[in-house]
């Protein structure tokens, strides 16, 4: 029995395993990213970075519900100009650093890409559900998605991943637009538009009134999105949404994900990255499989 191989090459990036830190989770500072880099991940993604400093939405900006986290951080970031230092620190960790970026116009994406040095790839956040002008505000329009992706591809010399929102009638249309724009991979999914109300007072809990749902609650939705995108696209799909156990990672890959990202689950468990990649190894080994054998396997089981 040969050992299964966890290391992958994803859009040209070498990663020692397919488990990635999701955007916006402990990705504010270089030091924090470096810490996660040392905890067994295959790659890390930064907090989403824009052209100008943003304070984000007023607090409360996150609340843990029964089945997931509800957040409306509001893309706080110091702008790409201030972020170069953090990026340099993050890169001291021994894994690829993907910079998540946002904007409302293709030029802004180009500006950020030009202004940031050392990113191993960029993830275009076209999917944050609680921003007036960014994220899903642009990511629900296939024309804009294609344009922004194209602009990013033209400017960047590194891979471009496009992160999609599930808050659309048909995520495949958006994935196809990203693919036409030249995306090297799509990432699905960002959080689902949601809200929670405090029954003692009637106030919506989040400072922004509503936000995005992540965690266990959304995993079945993410699995379906990944499944549909895998079937429709020729580029890799990266799965994210509610992965908190190794079984979830396997499920996501069986739906078609080449790699998985983990966000909310770090809330309970800081060592989740190494735990999941080790368990993945054991799972593959016990069945004498390689990653390639499970990615998208659900599609082969189905009489079309």
């Amino acid at each position, binding site marked *: 029995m040969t050992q299964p191989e966890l290391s992958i090459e994803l859009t040209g990036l070498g990663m020692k395993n397919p488990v990635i830190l999701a955007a*916006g*989770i*402990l*990705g*504010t*500072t270089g*030091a*924090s*990213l*470096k*810490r*996660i880099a040392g905890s067994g991940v295959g790659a890390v993604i930064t*907090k989403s970075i824009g052209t100008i*400093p*943003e*304070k*984000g939405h*007023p*607090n*409360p*900006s*996150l*609340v*843990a*519900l029964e089945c997931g*986290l509800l*957040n409306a*951080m509001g893309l*706080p*970031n*110091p*702008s790409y100009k*201030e*972020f170069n*230092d*953090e990026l340099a620190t993050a890169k001291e960790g021994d894994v690829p650093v993907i910079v998540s970026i946002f904007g409302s116009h293709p030029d802004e994406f180009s500006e950020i890409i030009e202004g940031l040095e050392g990113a191993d790839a960029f993830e275009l956040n076209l999917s944050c559900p609680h921003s007036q002008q960014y994220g899903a505000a642009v990511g629900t329009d296939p024309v804009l998605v294609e344009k922004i992706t194209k602009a990013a591809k033209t400017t960047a010399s590194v891979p471009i991943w496009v992160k999609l929102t599930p808050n659309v009638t048909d995520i495949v249309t958006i994935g196809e637009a990203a693919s036409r724009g030249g995306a090297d991979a799509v990432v699905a999914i960002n959080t689902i538009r949601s809200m*929670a109300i*405090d029954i*003692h*007072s009637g*106030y919506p*809990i989040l*400072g922004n009134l509503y936000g995005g749902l992540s965690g266990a609650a959304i995993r079945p939705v993410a699995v379906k999105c990944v499944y549909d995108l895998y079937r429709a696209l020729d580029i890799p799909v990266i799965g994210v949404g509610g992965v908190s156990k190794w079984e979830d990672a396997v499920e996501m890959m069986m739906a078609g994900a080449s790699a998985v990202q983990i*966000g*909310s689950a*770090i*809330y309970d468990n*800081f060592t989740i990255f190494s735990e999941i990649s080790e368990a993945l190894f054991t799972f593959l080994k016990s069945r004498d499989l390689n990653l390639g054998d499970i990615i998208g396997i659900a599609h082969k089981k189905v009489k079309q």
Partner: protein
Amino acid sequence: MKPVNAVIKEVIKETPTITTLIFDIKPDAIPGQFVMVWIRGVDEVPMALSHPNSITVQRVGDASETLSNMKPGDSIGLRGPFGNGFELTGQRIMIIAGGVGAAPLLPLAHQLRLRDAKISILLGAKTSKELLFEEQFSRSGELKAATDDGSKGYHGVITGLMDKYDLNSFDMFYVCGPEMMMRAVLDMLHVNGLENRSQFSLHRYFKCGIGVCGSCTIDPWGLRVCKDGPVFYGDILLNSELGKYHRDVTGKKIMF
């Protein structure tokens, strides 16, 4: 967990700028843990528990102002308690409190006292009227005050007062106060090789409060003040950003 509703039972004006709000519930917390206090329609901010059922607030801006003006019957939302809290250890204890930093240290002093620790409390403030919990601390140990203007106790910064003690005779130092004061204390302990006998409760900008978002992480190890802290041992902090810079709400570094 959604915020739990807490109704204010009693409001105590502690000093001209500091107010204690006693509420109707007792979050199950250990000293040094904090709650995220939701002032509906205004903001949500971290506050230490100053008693099992209270927070003690210094007026510095919108949220703390609104809190300071609350009346019995008003209510707030509480998420938590969160964070690690202090590790209770040692028999000869020095508690070093500056300003509203006395808040998390008060329940600590009570609990240490129950363990028969011998406690010296060094309580600092700008001026005598701002000395917080002077009387309550005195019940747990021997208290010495320091004021910037000399209106009470030692005239000057709290490290001056520390100088008067044989620091090596203490098992543990518990510290909370303004950042530059904490840095000065840490440096002084370091000179005496005592940093690993000290615990500091830190402040950073919190958004999530539960260790997910990253806004409160400190350099150079990326520790989360909200989850890995807010209490850290001095040796961890020695080569950290403490007293050098912090980050504002955007994540931008601000030098002290």
